[in-house]
């Protein structure tokens, strides 16, 4: 689904060069739920931006669902984002002036879908996140958890190949966070690949695999279960 090989990304100013990603390689298979963790400033967000085609990279190769990203035009990258990727942001990023229905409709409109199909997909996505009855409420009329569920509905309405979630529970209390994570797991069980970027090890534990980024490089690259087993064994002893 996602194959990054030797990706590097450098941010330059007149005085400073910051190597946000260096020789970064990661593969994610279809249907996986991968958590990318790391301390603040480690390169998680840069990874998310590059993986989500929100930013370009300097060197390396990136295949997304078999498509070589290098050399794609801005419009082609937009089309790929729209068709293959669903985004879930920490701050929900709902459009405050649009009601819930229209918020979920935003990416579908950019795909030039017929109105009837859009309506059916929006109803279905809102049904999955349990907010169909709130379709004509404004984001400001919903709680944080509900807003994030709307964002998830927006992300899945276009039936993307994979979801990129950026600290999706960062602005939620623990109960809401649990509900959102339950929802993500449910979506993953339906076959959608999920890459979760977080600094919260508790959340990362719920993923099938945990990848840690430090200084723009992957420092640990093992399934979470394999990481946790020795510690658990030690604790039980």
């Amino acid at each position: 689904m996602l194959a990054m090989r030797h990706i590097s990304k450098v941010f330059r100013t007149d005085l400073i060069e910051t190597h946000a990603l260096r020789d970064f390689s990661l593969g994610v298979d279809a249907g996986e739920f991968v958590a990318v963790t790391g301390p603040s400033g480690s390169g998680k967000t840069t990874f998310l931006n590059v993986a989500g085609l929100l930013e370009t990279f300097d060197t390396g190769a990136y295949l997304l669902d078999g498509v070589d990203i290098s050399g794609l035009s801005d419009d082609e990258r937009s089309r790929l984002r729209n068709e293959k990727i669903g985004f879930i942001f920490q701050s929900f990023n709902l459009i405050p002036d649009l009601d819930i229905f229209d918020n979920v409709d935003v990416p579908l409109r950019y795909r030039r879908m017929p109105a009837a199909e859009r309506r059916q997909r929006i109803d279905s996505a809102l049904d999955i996140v349990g907010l169909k009855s709130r379709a004509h409420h404004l984001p400001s009329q919903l709680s944080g958890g509900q807003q994030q569920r709307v964002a998830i509905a927006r992300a899945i309405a276009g039936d993307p190949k994979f979801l990129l979630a950026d600290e999706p529970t960062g602005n939620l209390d623990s109960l809401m966070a649990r509900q959102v994570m339950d929802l993500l797991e449910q979506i993953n069980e339906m076959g959608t690949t999920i890459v979760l970027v977080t600094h919260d090890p508790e959340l990362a534990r719920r993923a099938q695999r945990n990848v840690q980024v430090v200084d723009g490089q992957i420092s640990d690259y093992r399934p979470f279960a394999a990481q946790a087993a020795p510690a658990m064994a030690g604790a039980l002893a």
Partner: protein
Amino acid sequence: MFRDIRPVLSALLRNRTGAVLVGLQVAIALAVLVNAVYIVKQRVDLIGRPTGLDVGNIFVLSSAGFTQDHDRYATMREDLAWLRSLPDVRAATSTNAIPLSGGGSSTGIATTPEASSEQTVPMNYFQVDEDGLEALGVTLAAGRNFRADEILPPDLNSDRAIPQVIITKALARSLFRTDDAVGKVVYDAFGRPTTVIGVIEHMQGSWLSWDKVDHVALVPEVASWSDNAYLVRTRPGTRAAVMRQAEEHLAASNTTRLIKFVRPLDYYRDRSYLSDRNMAVFLVTVTVLLAGVTALGIFALATFNVNVRTRQVGTRRAVGARRADIVRYFLVENWLVTTAGVVLGCALALAAGYQLSRQFELPRLDLYYLTGGVLALWLLGLAAAWQPARRAAKISPSMATRTI
């Protein structure tokens, strides 16, 4: 574009203060712009009306005697003889009034000797000699010019009949309902007959704001004005030189008079239209300023909307909007604001046009101008929003993931 309207309108209606203000600005701009342009067009048409005269090659020279032994008619004969001898002078005549100048003589004539005042047709007349037609540069449509022997001496008491007259077509139509007036007889205010011997194609008289400015008659008579005034028509390109030459010579040739002025005929036409021209310039200035302020308002609203929606634009880009989609979004939003203003502006423009036509007896607003104004403001709105929209399109999709 139209598929974007509903969500854009929906978002716009939830943040309408700025949009309402700019919409009102557009409405007022349209109402003022359309009526101002319409009035300017009328003024331009008025100023551009054909005079029938060879304005660009005619000048006026006026002199007045200041000694008791000054013989104005002898001087006039000498002056005209000298002027006519100049190779660059096509013709010169004495005159009682200057066409287009705002000053002149008028009377009423009729087709019957006992005409009532309602049956009398007002006209502006000029006393000229046999060079009059050529000196004015007017075109004789029918009949003939005056002969030298038909030119009457000055009549200081104005109490004699004029045997012949040349009139304009417009005057002929008012008198006889036809251009064919040659040989017909008209009567002055005292019932004295005068035969029409020629018809001029077109000529404007003294008062350009008069609705009968083209009711003009030429009378074969030595001018009995207090000063000597000559209309001199030169060959193309020589007027300025002839004016200087004439002023110098006539001032020196007779020391019992002074030259009061030597002016091109354009001077009088321009002076007569001065208020119209000033109004046109003022209205054009106001219109341009208003259009500029309106464009700034639209630009400011679009810029504000882009600035407060940086994250939103990043999110739209992240979920698949192309740059063109972002440009279109802001242009559609601006178009909706402009259109709302334009709709209100149409009503205001028509109401203002109606009031202007009632208060100042102007013609009713031509709807072509309204249509043109609407198109102009739409284009202005799109042009003003273009740069902010393009700037919005350059916002990176990665803005969606930034937390600051």
